[in-house]
């Protein structure tokens, strides 16, 4: 397994453990752990056999009927031995032993500039009065492609589930995303792994107890992704979507293509992608059928033509040069642009790329918004911010900085049950979310996970509503940078927000560089 090992301490409290009292009677931890941390010996006694294999997913603690297991980080040396921490030492050993670089799933670890150093300014006497969250309405709707398509996407909430492919995710997890989107009126995105047979109707409706098809209100939207590998793509696939997303890059590995490890390429995945079972599926890092921006404009034009000018065309960008890249997307004819930050996640990526390449999410927004304003496209071409978005608080801040909405990728996985153990790349997700193993997938209930996703989205939307109304607005489109303050110099410098105390923007933002 290519991950940093030995960073967790597994403790079993023998006074609580059923097996310790009655050997052979309980081995739940042995059964649920896909990493063989526990073992049962011939006498029925369970032992912690392999501490080093624990990835910290905590599924054993969750399933333990007596709450007898504790998983704690073993890394207390982060401060005292820096930079030769245990994971760093282990990584060097891994490379020395295998000659291979480290792979990692999920996303960036550690601190990067983020939204936590931004605070929201509530409404008082010098500003429009606050709105009553309990008795007044607040508009959260975002419309994509209103002026360009016959069937624009009308998001009930300003959120979407970003592209997460079948292959990286299990079939059941993809179904749950469609169900969650259907119940909340937001977007589910196929990613580049092709379309599941049930996905197009799961995102709109469900089968009732009499096996009749019922439509969810408000009903969700399925965006199909057009990417560099073009897995499972056909005219029917493109037409099956309520929108088509052209993927340019992603936050976890900008400048690289998709990388689905062979461990996840089952017969079903292989059939959709047209590759041998067990073979790594590598999407190219660039389009073989695009050489310049003119080609990209032509691509948008023929995708509109194939879909009958019915659905919006979206772009997805990685965190590179946000001002120039967003301008290029607008020129190419985008109806919406998702821009993914350094913190964005993935199923598998070289660890050094996930950790060290790209611009943090919060720093992408000012130049991206400035590009849209300079092109006269702000609020027309919708901007969605992805990468480490966790809550309504993050969403509000991103939208007040000028975004039209946000995407929840990792947060959606966590809402489905993930514990962020960062071992997606192993294909042995204990919760069956990022695994193709039938036994692990059987642990995952798509309907229950879909309900959890819908709950998460509704609760997050309520958070956005609370924050919007306490800052004196009844429409998310009225949010502005004036509703925010930076709490430290670094954040004020990066974002152009007014600095608390100083109560002005930093001088270089006032001298024409600001958004």
């Amino acid at each position: 397994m290519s991950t940093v090992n030995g960073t967790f301490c597994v403790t079993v409290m023998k006074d609580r453990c059923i097996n310790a009292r009655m050997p052979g009677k309980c081995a739940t931890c042995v059964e649920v752990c896909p990493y063989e941390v526990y073992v049962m010996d011939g006498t029925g006694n369970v032992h912690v056999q392999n501490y080093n294999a624990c990835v910290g997913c905590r599924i054993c603690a969750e399933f333990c009927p007596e709450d007898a297991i504790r998983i704690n980080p073993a890394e207390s040396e982060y401060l005292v031995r820096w930079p030769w921490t245990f994971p760093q030492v282990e990584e060097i050993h891994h490379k020395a032993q295998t000659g291979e670089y480290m792979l990692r799933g999920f996303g960036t670890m550690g601190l990067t500039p983020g939204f936590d150093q931004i605070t929201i300014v509530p409404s008082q006497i010098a500003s429009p009065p606050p709105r009553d969250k309990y008795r007044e309405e607040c508009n959260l709707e975002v419309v994509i492609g209103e002026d360009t398509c016959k069937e624009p996407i009308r998001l009930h909430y300003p959120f979407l589930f970003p592209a997460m492919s079948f292959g990286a995710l299990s079939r059941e997890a993809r179904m749950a995303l469609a169900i969650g989107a259907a119940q909340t009126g937001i977007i589910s995105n196929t990613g580049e792994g092709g379309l599941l047979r049930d996905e197009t109707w799961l995102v709109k409706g469900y089968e009732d107890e009499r096996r009749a098809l019922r439509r969810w209100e408000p009903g969700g939207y399925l965006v199909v992704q057009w990417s560099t590998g073009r897995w499972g793509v056909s005219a029917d696939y493109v037409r099956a979507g309520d929108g088509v997303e052209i993927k340019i890059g992603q936050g976890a590995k900008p400048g690289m293509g998709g990388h689905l490890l062979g461990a996840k390429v089952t017969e079903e995945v292989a059939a959709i992608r047209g590759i041998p079972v067990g073979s790594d599926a590598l999407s190219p890092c660039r389009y073989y059928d695009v050489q310049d921006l003119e080609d990209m404009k032509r691509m948008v034009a023929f995708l509109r033509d194939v879909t009958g000018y019915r659905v919006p065309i979206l772009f997805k960008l990685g965190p590179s040069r946000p001002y120039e890249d967003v301008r290029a997307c607008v020129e190419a004819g985008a109806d919406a642009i998702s821009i993914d930050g350094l913190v964005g996640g993935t199923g598998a990526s070289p660890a050094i790329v996930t950790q060290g390449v790209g611009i943090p999410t919060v720093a992408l927004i000012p130049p991206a918004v400035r590009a849209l304003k300079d092109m006269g496209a702000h609020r027309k071409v919708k901007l969605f911010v992805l990468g480490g978005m966790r809550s309504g608080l993050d969403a509000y801040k991103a939208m007040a900085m000028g975004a039209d909405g946000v995407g929840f990728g990792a947060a959606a996985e966590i809402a489905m049950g993930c514990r962020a153990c960062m071992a997606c790349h192993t294909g042995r997700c204990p919760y069956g979310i990022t695994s193709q193993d039938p036994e692990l997938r059987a642990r995952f209930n798509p309907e229950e996970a879909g309900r959890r996703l819908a709950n998460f989205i509704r609760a997050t939307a309520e958070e956005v509503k609370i924050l919007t109304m306490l800052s004196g607005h009844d429409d998310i489109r009225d949010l502005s940078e004036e509703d925010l303050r930076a709490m430290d110099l670094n954040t004020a410098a990066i974002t152009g927000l007014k600095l608390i105390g100083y109560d002005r923007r930093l001088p270089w933002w006032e001298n024409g560089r600001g958004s």
Partner: protein
Amino acid sequence: MAPVLDASERELRSVSTELKEAVTEGPVVIQGAAHLHGLVAGFKSGEVTIRGDSGDYLGVLNDGATVRVEGNAGRYLADNMTRGTIIVEGDAGYGAGPYCYGGTIVVKGDAGDFTAVMNKGATILIGGDVGDEVATYMLAGDLVIVGSAGKNLGNYLIRGSIYIGGKWESLGHNTLLEEMTPADLAKLRDYFQQYGIEADPATFRKIVRLSEKPFYKAKKPA
């Protein structure tokens, strides 16, 4: 006699809208379409003849139509085609037949670099020479080159077969020269007969993959 649709100085949307209606009635001829990119996109049926040259992305996402180009085709011919036939009497530009899952592409003249890139099942016949990096990351299907090829022919070949009548500058990673079988010879003879290409199958060489997993093996636990 097929109706003639004059596309000169017209935009893609208006020509395409008219074309979609016209093909339901029977074969259609289009002229003056060299400036239109992405024509005949995603058609499930119909017969279209382009009089003169075509633009880029002709027949993109084609899903059953038959398209004939009397002149030369632009870049990315039949991009991501799944079914149907596209025949070009002249040359094709850069990247002919990328990402195709199926169907047949016949270019009677030469084709550019990156022809048949990521081909996933189409049959692609090139009557003349091809450029560099042809059939890169090909996953399935047949590529037949009557003439010669440039550098890195069949680079990172995964599956499928490349048949070549002329020379090549260099072969790409994961390629293997294999003996032509009687079935291969019969297949090529059929192709040439069906599409009116003058070539002798006996002079052809066959290139296949060396290993099934040329990139990175599924990694074992460290």
